[in-house]
């Protein structure tokens, strides 16, 4: 097999400093091969993509693509012409005002004449399924449609090599699956070689080969099942592993029961291993979860339309949020989650009959009353998606101070609130005097979160707090959230991911088309299979896996029920191992 791209001992630095973004990395991508490059944020993987498309030049080492050296000034256009890139942010790679103009941009640049040009545009749009929207304004597309448009723009260049730089990071799971299906179709039918840079393990597990990058170096490479299931190594690299290998690893941590890499390679081998050790196990009931009864926020008969003629974004919503709980709001992009939470602190005020009320002791505050809104905003902290884009002050300290100051905090009280909030999100004291703009994206997000926590809200509403973070970032974010909850803060978590909701929530509220489909305890929610089908909800991976295990181990009904009450891999491991938490 011929190689599409090969990098050998490549080093690259953005400035003249000794800090190398890529520090001696080598990789090969064969013709027609589908390869994943994984790594934590800042590991140098995006830089690697830029080097392969000759958008940057290596300081040391060689890169050849289609057999052409990237240093060859006469021929590097041939590389770019035959290589297509799709980047992370859908908005920042669209040039055209309308869909067809954007697809035409690339072929126009390389001078494809009409009628071939319009044929290429038509075919590319048909391939990704956007042909009926060809005259639409690009700004009006959804995130998933924008990424498909980006693929169409690349396809119109008829590339031989496709580079995806975290192209699915900002998509919801359904759009992500559609996007990946499209990419896999390209690999299969058009024999295009693909390098995908991603945090997503499911995506990586579907490739032919994976490379793991850490601090500019390639630390692991091989077939996905060999690399991804090596749990300790993956954690070390700031990544995650599939659920079955993680379960074996957690069992080992809990009970000391050793397993080999061979056991953790596939679901089948993991089940075989579990079968050998835990058949007919008696599983105890996990400790009871606390109950939350006191209503803190009540949403009553809330409907909302952004304009008179348009469809309703919310339809007759009734929802109680209980004091101290973590309530997860789950649903696809555009289902009304964000509109609902924007009502919770009165940024959007109820239309018509609807009401949003906050119960504080004996007093009831309502967002329908203008005078009470300021009080409500102090009590209900709202953190929108990608909150790092709202930072504006010269120092982190001043930025965190903005909210509490507006609420009237002063002097020592203010200083203490800022430092406490910073500590809660895991920011060091020395960071406080830095400019927020010199921090990494993950740290910026924590600053933005601290800015809301410092206002000491009773309720914290978080819209996709872990979006775009790598696995380590996600773990840390959820650790912070659990600690906030432990300290008594009520939390509303908006997420696309059922697994995330399942693991962390006391109750899950699912939404679709502006309506609430159901609110329930996560365990109960997935017991009624018919109801799930009706709501078009898929059970979390963990739950489906545990159901398979229960059958394989031949558990008695009580044990099975107990095992299915595990909400995390760790909990499942403790239950299987018979160890008390």
């Amino acid at each position, binding site marked *: 097999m011929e190689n599409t791209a090969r990098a050998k001992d490549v080093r690259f630095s953005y400035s003249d400093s000794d800090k190398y973004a890529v520090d001696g990395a080598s990789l090969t991508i064969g013709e027609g091969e589908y390869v994943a490059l994984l790594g934590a944020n800042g590991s140098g993987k995006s830089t690697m993509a830029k080097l392969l*498309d000759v*958008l940057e030049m290596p300081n040391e080492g060689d890169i050849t693509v289609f057999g052409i050296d990237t240093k060859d000034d006469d021929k590097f*256009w041939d590389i*770019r*012409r035959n*290589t*297509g*890139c799709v*980047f992370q*942010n859908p*908005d*920042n*790679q*669209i*040039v*055209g*005002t*309308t869909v*067809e*103009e954007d697809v*035409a*941009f*690339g*072929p*126009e*640049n*390389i*001078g494809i*004449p*009409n009628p071939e*040009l*319009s044929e290429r*545009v038509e075919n590319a749009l048909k391939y990704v399924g956007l042909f009926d929207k060809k005259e639409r*304004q*690009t*700004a*009006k597309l959804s995130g998933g449609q924008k990424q498909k448009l980006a693929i169409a*723009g*690349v396809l119109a*260049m008829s590339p031989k090599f496709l580079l995806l730089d975290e192209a699915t990071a900002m998509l919801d799971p359904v759009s992500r699956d559609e996007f990946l299906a499209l990419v896999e179709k390209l690999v299969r039918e058009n024999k295009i070689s693909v390098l995908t840079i991603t945090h997503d393990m499911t995506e990586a597990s579907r490739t032919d080969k994976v490379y793991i990058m850490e601090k500019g170096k390639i630390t692991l490479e091989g077939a996905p099942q060999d690399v991804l299931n090596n749990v300790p190594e993956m954690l070390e690299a700031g990544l995650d592993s599939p659920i079955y290998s993680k379960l074996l690893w957690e069992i080992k941590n809990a009970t000391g029961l050793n397993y080999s890499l061979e056991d953790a390679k596939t679901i089948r081998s993991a089940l075989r291993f579990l079968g050998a050790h835990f058949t007919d196990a008696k599983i105890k009931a996990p400790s009871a979860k606390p109950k939350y009864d006191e209503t803190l926020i009540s949403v009553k008969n809330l409907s909302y339309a*952004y304009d008179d003629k348009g469809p309703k974004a919310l339809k007759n919503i009734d929802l109680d949020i209980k004091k101290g709980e973590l309530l997860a709001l789950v649903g696809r992009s555009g289902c009304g989650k964000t509109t609902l939470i*924007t009502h919770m*602190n009165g*940024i959007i005020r109820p239309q018509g009959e609807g009401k949003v009320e906050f119960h504080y002791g004996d007093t009831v505050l309502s967002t329908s009353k203008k005078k009470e809104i300021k009080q409500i*905003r*102090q009590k209900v*902290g*709202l953190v*929108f998606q990608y*909150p790092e*884009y*709202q*930072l*504006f002050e010269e120092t982190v300290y001043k930025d965190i101070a*903005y*909210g509490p100051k*507006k609420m009237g905090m002063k002097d020592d009280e203010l200083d203490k609130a800022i430092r406490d909030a910073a500590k809660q999100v895991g920011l060091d004291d020395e960071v406080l005097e830095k400019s927020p*703009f010199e921090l990494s994206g993950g740290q910026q997000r924590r600053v933005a979160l601290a800015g*809301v926590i410092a*206002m000491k809200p009773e309720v914290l509403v978080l819209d996709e707090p872990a979006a775009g973070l790598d696995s380590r970032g996600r773990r840390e974010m959820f650790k912070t959230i659990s600690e906030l909850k432990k300290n008594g803060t009520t939390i509303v978590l908006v997420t696309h991911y059922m697994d995330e909701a399942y693991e962390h929530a006391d109750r899950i509220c699912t939404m679709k088309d502006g309506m609430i489909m159901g609110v329930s305890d996560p365990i109960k929610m997935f017991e009624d299979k018919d109801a799930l089908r009706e709501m078009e909800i898929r059970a979390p991976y963990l739950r489906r896996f545990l159901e398979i295990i229960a059958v394989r181990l031949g558990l008695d009904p009580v044990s099975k029920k107990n095992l299915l009450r595990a909400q995390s891999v760790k909990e499942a491991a403790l239950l299987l191992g018979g160890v008390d938490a």
Partner: protein
Amino acid sequence: MLKDISIGRYYRANSVLHNLDPRCKAILFILYLVAIFLLKSPIAIGLLVVLTVILQILGKIPPKVMWNSAKPILPIIILIVVLNVLTLKSGDVIFSWWKITITEGGVKSALIMAVRLLMMILVTSIILTLTTTPLKLSEALEKLFAPLKVIKFPVHEMAMMMSIALRFIPTLIDETDKIMKAQVSRGADYDTGTIVSRLKGYVTVLVPLFVSSFRRADELATAMDARCYNGGEGRTKLHPLKLTGKDVAIFIALSLGAFLLVAVEKIDSIRSLF
């Protein structure tokens, strides 16, 4: 919060004017502008009103849309009329009280001025903004200014900048909206307080907006590079502007209107000498 801003105010329809080559429209616009500046006689102005109505019918633009594009400048027109009536003094005195004197000539020229200004706005809207998308207009300008490339004027780059700016306006409006909501959640208040404190408040929106615009610009540049953008040289176009016989015929017919206006004006002014 910012959703009601509409840029360009393009009115979607399928009409003779909508389908006319944007280069023709740009030149027609200039012809009419010059003609309107030359008009003084009431007859010519009357003819201008008739021509504007004909253009409106050709462009299939409903009166309500016309009214909406005229509405914002009405206060200015009224102000100009009032100033003219009070300051211009010629002909018979109609009204006199204390220091205020209103003359027949003053009223007449104020009215002519007002109608002329109103027609200028309406003709601009009909020929350009209502019937031409901003993108088409930027393409027309690129073509019309192409000769300037000889003196190294970056015509293609200017047009590209204009179309990218147009592409990003909705994106940035969305982003501004998001940032404002986030800051309002943290207690910002953009609607009350003194002007100084409100302006200060906007720093909380402008700084993040600038920072993100630079990031967007940087990422867009990389994406354009990756899509082989290398300036205007050797580029082709998906929908190149094509001048048809029909375009030329409509252009000639409509420009005759402008010449007719000037001719009527001349004849009328010569006649008035006798």
